[in-house]
């Protein structure tokens, strides 16, 4: 099998992967980083959202072998061990989840939203978070959590 290297959360990993392995499957099945969720596996739900060079993307539609030269950040890598990213804290404060399955994708997506800096109003935040579905319907609390961080970050 071809050898390649993935850079995930600041660490380099040597992997033997077939071309048809998605970035999502490489993260979960080969590296044990199961925080990134496999929801629909067809690019429709956003549960598999990761950051690629700081930009949010869907790991289920990305081929792992095409991502050797980039920095990948998963939910496990957004804050140092033992501490919470401000968005994780905001999700707790605003009770922005029920079952929690979509939450890693929601939080990583919201970090991408903050990096982009285009969403300011509630309407813009809703639009910019629309790629992440929540079957429990915690949208209003997710909006409150993301709004708090948008305000705090001043973007």
């Amino acid at each position, binding site marked *: 099998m071809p050898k390649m290297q993935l850079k995930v959360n600041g660490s380099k990993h040597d992997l033997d992967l077939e071309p048809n392995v998605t970035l999502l499957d490489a993260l979960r099945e080969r590296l044990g980083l199961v925080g990134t969720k496999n929801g629909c596996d067809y690019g429709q739900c956003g549960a598999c959202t990761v950051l690629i060079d700081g930009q949010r993307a869907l790991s289920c539609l990305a081929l792992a072998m095409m991502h050797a030269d980039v920095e990948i950040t998963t939910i496990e890598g957004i804050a140092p061990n033992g501490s919470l990213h401000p968005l994780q804290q905001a999700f707790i404060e605003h009770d922005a989840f029920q079952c929690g399955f979509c939450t890693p994708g929601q939080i990583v997506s919201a970090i991408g939203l903050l990096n982009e800096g285009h969403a300011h109003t509630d309407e813009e935040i*809703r639009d910019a978070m*629309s790629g992440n579905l929540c079957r429990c319907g915690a949208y209003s609390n997710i909006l409150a959590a993301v709004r708090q961080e948008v305000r705090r970050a001043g973007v």
Partner: protein
Amino acid sequence: MQAFDLLTPTNIRDAVKLMAETKDAAFIAGGTNVVDLMKCGVTAPSTLVDITHLPLASIESDARRIRIGALARNSDVAHHPAIVENFPMLSQAFLAGASPQLRNMATVGGNILQRTRCPYFRDPAAACNKRHEGDGCDAFEGFHRMHAILGTSDACIATHPSDAAVALVALDATLEIQSASGSREVSLEEFYSLPGETPSVENDLKPGELIVAIDVPLGRAHRHSTYLKVRDRASYEFALVSVAAGLEFDGDRIDEARIALGGVGTIPWRARGAEEALVGTSGDSAYEKAAEIALNHAVPRRDNAFKVELAKRAIVRALETVRRGQ
């Protein structure tokens, strides 16, 4: 997903050469459409040619046009200052499509070539003339609320799903296409094929050819423009109806008009008859007449007849928006 080989050329010449030499090969860039369709079992290329290392992602302006590299990401084009200023309809169309994650991945070249979202096309267990000619079409008697009313045939009523391509057709965009034997240019409007009896043929791209750039000419009707998308949800949904509209005024009189429709056509639908009807008129009353003309030849079916009136009203709304903003 089935097994395949992955090739990674680093220049255009090698990419088109590999494509010409390899049986059942497909290009991959953002992957948002091709990987999805491979997972659905709709396509099964033996080889993917990864073009993401080719130098085709830049956006360059000169005095008469903006040239968008085929590998520019949807999000990069949408937020590019020159695009926002000169082609508001294009920026808005990109932002109306998909989700932020998908827009960060998907390229302009791939957007133009994306396949229909018809559920019968995406389901290998259903009959689909586009997937396999002669199989019939389950959409005719099935659920076709989302399907096309313009440019349809007895073989296919699937809509073209792109928002950006609707704006690009309205903006007289031209494709630069390269192959092992040279390069050529074709207008995007002429690039798309109506389904007719051969719905599997969707465009003029020949085997081994690669779209390298999209040229969009500057123009006052391009600058005074808007994109209106009507859909079941406020965001992250395909269009029921969409309108790319641009107007150039001489005082109160319309000098030039651009109208293209999405969500209603089997291809991004340029409404030239409606444009001609607007030129020389002044006042909003001409908008309804133009909208009538645009939908003159619509062929509605059981579930999608509502699109005729919806499209007319969307055209009038889009033109009013442009007029107010000029």
